[in-house]
């Protein structure tokens, strides 16, 4: 073994130890009396120090040495751990890590000045307790290197005195070949049964220790090679299986079946060798959270569930940064300052929960906090301010869609830019990075109660399930993750079922128009001349849009081994890679998103057109619909479809102003006309009286339904909001008064459905296109 090999081993081992140190130190801060953890921290630093001395890294050794001295004082209870000491020890870990990476790059420690750090660490040792740093009982200093020495165990368990162990150890030094236990038994200091018990304890503690004999280090490159070879084997197996089908030889068939089983198992096992528990990257998060929380004056408890969940190494590496960003975001923006939390009736310390679990061949990761949650209003404003969406678009968006705006490039709601996050280059990068490895990000939030981010990622990238289709005589693979369903239209059906929207082909899939893309046209393949007698539509999902891909033939689903495209083909955005099929030919793997973008199905801005939303509303007409119920006149019940409702608001009566004989209020920078339901529903002769009647003194707050009608908004003042229900509303009778569409049985009671355009007519309100309030203010001046 050459010296560079030794240094390499030292580096690899030290990095692992440092990662563990981060975790243990943060754990210790929470629980300073954990002697085991303290012992482990001490041993780790001790090991690094020893190796540095041996390899001649003097600066590293000096830093580790003061750290060790400080830890000795802690271990001997001459000091107790406090945040200052923890911070100093963590910066020591950082310094060691930096030096290690310097050694890795340059082969030597390089020019560094750690005198500040060393001074801090030395100063911290000078706390209350006296006397020099003497490792107190002799046997203890020996115990440092090993997990537990037999002498220690005997002292604890069997009441052996240190002096007895000392004398036995001296006998060993003088040349007594027997074990320590044997000498002690002979001296009558201990019973043989105690020694046996002590050995058992020692064995079990060693097995659980950091260095276990059952693992070996393997170069990742080697594993990659094995993985590739297994990929080849899978292909060869596929070929053999195809032969076996043709050659009707039972012996050969049996052998190929066995080959099939073994290959599948081998593939799984080799995949496992590349699997790493997500805990490997989560291990650093307690440290990250601690640092961020400390720097913004917050208290955060981190809880980790499912850290043993395993993922492919390449994926682990790819999601490390996005996850770190999300965690930092939660602490920085999500969780409030302790005083704000107490005001909101929460405990001063925030709670950050990381969860990972397997589900349906994918890994789910959840990062949730119990912080302030997302402020829909602020996101809306910000998105308009940054011109990411128009105010019309925002008005028709659901809360969930508004949350998703934070993933747009250039979006950041942080009030101030901190050194942690809020630079506007956050969530969009997270989304892009997760999507690059075939994953999805989704966000849920409830204002005042917290935010949860769900990340879904595939287990591995190397072998994926795919649908194989034929087009223009060539086969193409479509990753299964993008696949929704398959539709086959027979010849006569196809002629009528595919309609044109000004030249753009569409198909009505369950009442909704599905844009169609012809693969042969998109790929500029020569048309196969005679149209096939049936049309095959592969319904695909790209970036929350659906579209139908028309192909010549749908073959089968297969597990394919993904081979990346070389740089000669990097410019072709419609393919993500290639794969070798069972017959040995190469097939291209379609990039569904790239194809959708090429065809214009998905625009770069990711904005969803209003038309699609309208289609959703229309679709639900015959089916169940959601209604907002509110009190009408004389204890009657009235309803509007929830889809017409923009928001529910409460305005204090003092905010209502009169303009042109009409109630108005200032709402989100606009003038919102207010229509009183009671006025609209009164008979004509009473209407005038009602209109000028002062509002009831007890109704200090007005319940207002903010409605959108043809792009205009107005507020409908109702007395009481009752409920939101889902119903078919198919038992109907015609309306018996104006401003009502019909009466229907909704939620087992007869309810009148409001006719919104009629209300506007009756009220004489021209729900004018909303203007910015500043302009009208100027006009008023």
């Amino acid at each position, binding site marked *: 073994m050459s010296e560079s090999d030794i240094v390499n081993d030292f580096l690899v081992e030290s990095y692992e130890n440092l990662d563990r140190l981060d975790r243990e130190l943060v754990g210790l801060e929470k629980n300073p009396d954990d002697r085991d953890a303290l012992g482990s921290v001490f041993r780790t630093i001790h090991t690094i120090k020893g190796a540095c001395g041996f390899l001649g890294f003097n600066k590293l050794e000096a830093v580790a040495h003061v750290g060790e001295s400080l830890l000795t004082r802690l271990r001997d209870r001459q000091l107790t751990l406090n945040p200052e000491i923890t911070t100093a020890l963590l910066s020591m870990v950082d310094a060691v890590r930096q030096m290690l990476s310097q050694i890795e790059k340059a082969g030597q420690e390089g020019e560094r000045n750690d005198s500040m750090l060393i001074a801090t660490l030395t100063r911290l040792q000078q706390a209350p307790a006296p006397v020099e740093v003497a490792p107190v009982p002799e046997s203890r200093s020996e115990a440092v290197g090993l997990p537990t020495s037999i002498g220690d165990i005997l002292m604890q368990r069997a009441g052996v005195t240190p002096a007895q162990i000392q004398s036995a150890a001296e006998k060993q030094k003088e040349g007594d070949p027997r074990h320590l236990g044997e000498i002690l038994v002979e001296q009558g200091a201990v019973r043989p049964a105690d020694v046996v018990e002590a050995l058992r304890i020692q064995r079990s503690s060693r097995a659980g220790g950091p260095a276990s004999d059952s693992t070996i280090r393997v170069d990742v490159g080697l594993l990659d090679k094995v993985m590739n070879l297994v990929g080849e084997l899978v292909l060869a197996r596929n070929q053999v299986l195809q032969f076996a089908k043709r050659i009707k030889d039972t012996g050969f068939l049996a052998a190929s079946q066995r080959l099939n089983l073994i290959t599948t198992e081998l593939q799984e096992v080799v995949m496992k060798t590349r699997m790493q528990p997500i805990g490997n990257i989560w291990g650093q998060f307690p440290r990250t959270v601690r640092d961020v929380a400390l720097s913004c004056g917050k208290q955060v408890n981190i809880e980790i569930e499912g850290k043993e969940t395993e993922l492919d190494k390449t994926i682990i590496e790819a999601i490390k940064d996005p996850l770190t960003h999300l965690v930092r975001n939660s602490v920085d923006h999500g969780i409030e300052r302790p005083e704000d939390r107490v005001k909101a009736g929460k405990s001063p310390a925030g709670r950050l929960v990381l969860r990972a679990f397997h589900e349906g061949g994918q890994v789910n990761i959840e990062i949730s906090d119990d912080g302030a949650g997302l402020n829909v209003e602020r996101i809306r404003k910000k998105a308009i301010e940054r011109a990411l969406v128009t105010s019309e678009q925002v008005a028709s968006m659901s809360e969930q869609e508004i949350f998703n705006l934070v993933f747009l490039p250039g979006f950041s709601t942080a009030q101030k830019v901190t050194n942690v996050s809020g630079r506007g280059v956050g969530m969009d990068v997270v989304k892009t990075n997760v999507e690059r490895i075939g994953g999805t990000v989704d966000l849920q939030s409830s204002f005042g109660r917290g935010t949860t981010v769900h990340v879904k990622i595939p287990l591995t990238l190397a072998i994926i399930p795919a649908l194989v289709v034929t087009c223009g005589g060539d086969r193409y693979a479509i990753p299964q993750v993008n696949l929704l369903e398959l539709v086959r239209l027979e010849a006569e059906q196809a002629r009528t079922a595919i309609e044109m929207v000004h030249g753009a082909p569409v198909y009505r899939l369950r009442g909704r128009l599905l844009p169609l893309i012809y693969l042969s046209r998109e790929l500029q*393949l020569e048309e196969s001349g005679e149209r096939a007698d049936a049309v095959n539509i592969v319904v695909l999902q790209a970036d929350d849009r659906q579209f139908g891909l028309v192909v010549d033939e749908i073959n089968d689903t297969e597990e394919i081994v993904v*081979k990346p495209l*070389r*740089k*000669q*083909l990097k410019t072709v955005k*419609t393919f993500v890679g290639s794969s070798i099929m069972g017959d040995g030919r190469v*097939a*291209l793997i379609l990039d569904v998103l790239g194809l959708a973008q090429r065809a214009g199905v998905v625009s770069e801005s990711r904005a969803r057109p209003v038309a699609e939303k309208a289609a959703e509303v229309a679709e639900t007409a015959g089916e169940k619909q959601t209604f907002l119920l509110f009190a009408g006149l004389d204890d009657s019940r009235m309803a509007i479809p929830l889809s017409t409702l923009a928001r529910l608001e409460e305005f204090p009566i003092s905010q209502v102003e009169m303009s042109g004989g009409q109630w108005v209020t200032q709402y989100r920078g606009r003038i919102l006309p207010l229509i009183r339901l009671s006025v609209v529903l009164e008979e004509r002769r009473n209407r005038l009286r009602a209109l000028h009647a002062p509002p009831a003194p007890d109704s200090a707050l007005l319940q207002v339904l903010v409605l959108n009608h043809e792009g205009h908004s107005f507020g409908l003042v109702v007395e009481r909001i009752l409920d939101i229900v889902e119903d078919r509303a198919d038992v109907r009778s015609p309306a018996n008064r104006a401003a009502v569409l019909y009466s229907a049985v909704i939620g087992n009671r007869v309810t009148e459905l409001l006719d919104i355009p009629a209300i506007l007519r009756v009220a004489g309100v021209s729900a004018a296109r909303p203007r910015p309030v500043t302009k009208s203010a100027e006009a008023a001046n």
Partner: protein
Amino acid sequence: MAQSSQYCTFYLDKLLFGVELKGVQEVIRSLEVTRVPLAPAAVSGLINLRGQVVTAVDLRRQLQLEPRPPGLPAMNVVVRSDDGAVSLLVDEIGDVVEVEEISFEPPPGTLRSSVRSMVQGVHKLNGRLLHVLDIENACHICADGQTGFGDHSSENRITDKSDLAD
């Protein structure tokens, strides 16, 4: 002392080309090529080279020669580029020739600039010229499908090499 080097030679539209032998991984007869729609014209497609997917570059198109007449099967000269193996499609394989540096001459200034980066120069053999192909540049495909290497860096490189040859 005169230096000699070995070239793997092949024909393209009756012209004799050569790549340095040490850059050649293997030479194989015609393989089935999977076309890549929308790819630059010089990319012929993808081939399965014993479980490895390799890009096949149509050297005739890349060097802006006449397209290969239909029915003429292409041979694959698999070369090692910086980005892994690439198969160069050629008409016919020639011998391995050993040439002296002394017979080398840089390309004439009248050589079409669009192919200049790919042709390092020629060796004057008995009765014919051996075009020396630059492997990296021959494997490089421009985004628009053209193979223009008008930039100065590559031109400089060629002059440097000719300096060395002198």
